[in-house]
């Protein structure tokens, strides 16, 4: 089982050092510590295990180090920055694993960009040796790239010529979208195994600066410090230590403090039961600091994130996720009010951004998402986003016969109007009602009102509103029907329907990953007996089907 929980004392592949307001994130891959047996992590190449640590480090730098304004990613290996994702690992991995691996690494790189854009934590890469494929893609996720000018250090994306696949972590898109590299230059780079070095790499905008190898560290630090004044991170603040996340895994059940997941393997379905906080929000920021990781929005996001990653990798056959909630929607709303009221506080901002990233993980998860809204539920504000993230939602009309629990109600609040945007940079409401700002305005007038199924239906907030008599059958059939469809086709359909509206760099990266890269990953030219990925390292020349598709 793959565990995404880790902490710096357990790292095998990364080291973090601190100099004033600058952190050094040093890649030092332990060749002999692959996540699963079967390959060596030579030349600072990475596998999922390396990236789990990176993800954790990026997260902790945000939460635990308010004083850190810049982060330099560099390598401990004197001649190699990183050879990218480990090829033998990819060659032996199952297709679902490869896809989810790429998805996770993309999310980590986007978290780096999110930290730079929204948290005042600026990322720089210092390339001191060969920087190939995924290594260069990691650099591309940072905002400033400095490279040693030693006549041999180069950046390259050799996936196409070497392996007959694509750079799977947003490399192609970032070149042209983020760095403004000309497409013909990018074309040359991506078909040239050895890549580009020195001044030409700067001229082509592949990197920002070259410097003599001996001065690389010094220059990186200078650039990092230059960024300091632009950051609004409070140097004097105390960080929030992210405690180990408690969870219990049983055969049919995964439990966190505020989330229980029940697995129905026969129906290929997981029920996410989210529990609302049982106490009112803290009175002020210092009281919030007192509660630490137990502060509900943070605790909820941590559980949900871990659950998403756990199920993606360790429960591949559970195809439908059903979200249910339990608790007082007024309390959930009160926490949202707290979050909005204290939005300027650096930690509250971090928590909000984390909630947003976690919800975005849901958006790009290849599972059918359902929300079941039943009596006793609390789909308000932050939790209302789960309804919007779902492919379909069912809300009970009225209450249950013979049960005093009142009919369910849902509520929108300020959290739903911009605090937790999707990758398309729209809110989930804007995406749902694309091109209909009047509908969003209409909802603004419902702020703070608890909406019945009838009203929610009229406002277009839920899909179906069966009553007690129909509920069990309708929901059962919906899940059974889903379980019978092709998972591939569902993935394609859901991903297409979820992202209405404008393309952004992020939506393009995920879409192209799931379309082009995953297609190529299935083709004989890559993975056939004589495909390039299969033959890599054997010395044999791959045989290609020369027909164009």
């Amino acid at each position, binding site marked *: 089982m793959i565990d995404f929980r880790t902490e710096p004392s357990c790292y095998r592949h990364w080291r973090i050092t601190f100099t004033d307001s600058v952190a050094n994130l040093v890649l030092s891959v332990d060749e002999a510590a692959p996540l699963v047996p079967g390959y060596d992590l030579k030349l600072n190449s990475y596998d999922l295990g390396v990236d789990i640590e990176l993800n954790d480090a990026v997260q902790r730098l945000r939460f635990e180090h308010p004083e850190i304004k810049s982060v330099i990613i560099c390598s401990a290996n004197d001649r190699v920055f990183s050879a990218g994702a480990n090829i033998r690992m990819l060659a032996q991995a199952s297709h679902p694993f490869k896809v989810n691996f790429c998805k996770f690494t993309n999310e980590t790189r986007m978290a780096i960009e999110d930290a730079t854009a929204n948290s005042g934590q600026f990322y720089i890469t210092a390339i001191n040796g060969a920087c190939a494929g995924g290594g260069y893609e990691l650099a591309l996720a940072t905002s400033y790239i400095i490279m040693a000018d030693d006549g041999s250090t180069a950046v390259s994306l050799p996936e196409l010529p070497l392996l007959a696949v694509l750079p799977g972590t947003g490399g192609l898109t970032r070149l042209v979208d983020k760095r403004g590299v000309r497409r013909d230059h990018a074309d040359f780079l991506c078909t040239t195994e050895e890549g580009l070095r020195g001044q030409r790499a700067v001229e082509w905008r592949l990197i920002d600066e070259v410097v003599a190898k001996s001065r690389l560290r010094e220059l990186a630090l200078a650039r990092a410090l230059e960024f300091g004044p632009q950051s609004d991170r409070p140097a004097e603040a105390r960080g929030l230590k992210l405690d180990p996340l408690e969870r219990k895994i049983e055969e049919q059940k995964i439990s966190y403090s505020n989330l229980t997941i029940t697995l129905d393997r026969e129906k290929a379905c997981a029920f996410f039961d989210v529990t609302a906080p049982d106490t009112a929000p803290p009175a002020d920021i210092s009281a919030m600091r007192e509660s630490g990781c137990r502060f509900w929005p943070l605790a909820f996001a941590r559980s949900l994130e871990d659950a998403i990653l756990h199920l993606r990798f360790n429960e591949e056959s559970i195809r439908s996720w059903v979200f249910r909630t339990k608790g007082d929607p007024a309390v959930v709303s009160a926490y949202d009010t707290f979050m909005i009221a204290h939005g300027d506080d650096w930690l509250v901002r971090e928590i909000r951004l984390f909630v947003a990233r976690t919800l975005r993980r849901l958006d790009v998860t290849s599972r059918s998402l359902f929300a079941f809204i039943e009596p006793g539920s609390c789909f308000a504000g932050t939790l209302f986003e789960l309804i919007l993230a779902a492919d379909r939602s069912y809300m009970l009309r009225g209450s249950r*016969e013979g049960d005093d629990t009142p009919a369910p109600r849902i509520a929108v609040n300020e959290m739903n109007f911009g605090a937790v945007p999707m990758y398309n940079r729209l809110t989930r409401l804007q995406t749902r009602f694309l091109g209909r700002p009047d509908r969003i305005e209409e909802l603004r007038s419902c702020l703070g009102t608890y909406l019945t199924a009838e009203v929610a239906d009229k406002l277009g907030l839920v899909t*179906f509103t*069966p009553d007690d*008599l*129909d509920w069990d*059958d*309708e929901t*059962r*059939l*919906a*899940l*059974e*029907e*889903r*379980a*019978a469809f092709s998972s591939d086709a569902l993935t394609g359909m859901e991903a297409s329907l979820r992202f209405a509206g404008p393309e952004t760099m992020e939506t393009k990266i995920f879409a192209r990953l799931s379309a082009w890269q995953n297609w190529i990953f299935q083709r004989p030219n890559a993975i056939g007996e004589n495909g390039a990925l299969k033959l890599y390292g054997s010395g044999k020349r791959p045989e290609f089907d020369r027909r164009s598709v």
Partner: protein
Amino acid sequence: MGLNYSERIPNNVNLSGDRRLMRALEIWQPHFLEWWKEMGPEGFQAADVYLRTATSVDAKGWATFGYLKMPDYRWGIFLAEANPDERIAFGEHKGEPLWREIPGEYRGVLRRLIVTQGDTEPASVEQQRHLGATCPSLYDLRNLFQVNVEEGRHLWAMVYLLHAYFGRDGREEAEALLGRRSGSGDNPRILGAFNERTPDWLSYFMFAHFTDRDGKYQLASLAESGFDPLARTCRFMLTEEAHHLFVGESGIGRVIERTCQLMNAHDTDSVGLFGGIDLAIIQRYLNFHYSISLDLFGSELSTNAANYFSAGLKGRYREDDWRDDHQLIGATRTVLKPEGSVIVESTQPALVALNETLRDSYVADCERALARWNKIIGAANIDFALKLPHRGFHRAIGQFSGVNVTPKGEIVSAQGWESRRDQWLPTSADKQLVADLMRPVLKPGEFASWIAPPVRGINHQPLDFEYVADLPQV
């Protein structure tokens, strides 16, 4: 609600204990009655009809006779008895327990099958609603109405399934069954044959014999379904369907009998002048109705049919009687197909040819009825035999739809076929002659000139029994 359900709606599905079903019926039942009054038998809604009502599924209850006004008929909901040990008998789920609830995987397909079957029931009532005005006797009028109310009950049977198992979708489909209209341009019935008018009683008997017989085979194959409530519903419907087929076969038999009497009495083949219908006309009507009914079985090669079978939703006629694996793995059969100017046999996977297999059972059944009719002709010492046309004749669906096949099974040019069309299919003169004979006979014990009386009455009643009373003033 003014409805006392167990009283008003005889049933063996524990209706009063099923809130969901009751709620659905509360809304649907008044709409059904409105539909019945608007589209049911025209002019006879207030008449007293000597009807058979099913009040339970046992031998005592399923046929209770008495006078009723049709809108007061107690449309009930009945399933044949359950066998708790039964298992799915065919397809990829063979051997698994029968489904008591709808498997989500097959929800859409099952709904389509049920809706398609259900749609034919009100359609036939609509097609036949004008026939009362030209009935050949009170006996026949009563039989028509019996069939009509039972088609109505078969609609109820399908609506029961939609209401009980398909939630909101099912309720919407049940409403739509009352919204479509046979022959309507904007909102027609689903199957083509059910949008044709039934203009006269000869057509009606042909319809009841040939088209309702397709219904029998469709119901019989659904009665094998792994979805238990559907199977049991269809099994009970088949007991009523038998009467409809009797009305058709005996009706045609009586027309033939009368024609033979007139032929012998007047020593002529042309009995039109004497108020009868020529055997040649009967043959042409037969050719028409048989061929369009064959279309209802669908294409010779059908992946839908294969999917229904493999999924365990729709079996073969009397699935138990087949001595094979009931899964048809690797099985083949021959299917006729046109090839250039000849019809040849081709070997096809048995799974995709299941429509043809069901059609075989139907054709054999039609052959048996034909032999009985020909016996009537033989008994009158007349040298004539009715024949079923080749199954490629006059087809609009399947492999023969693009070619011109004669009743004997030869492929001819379109022009050659058209030039002989009047020999094979009812001509406008035939239709006119039949139409001219359609004059109402409403006195007890009397019969129209073109049809012989039946051998016996209904429920041991004499032939001059007043099968329909309190008739409207004509």
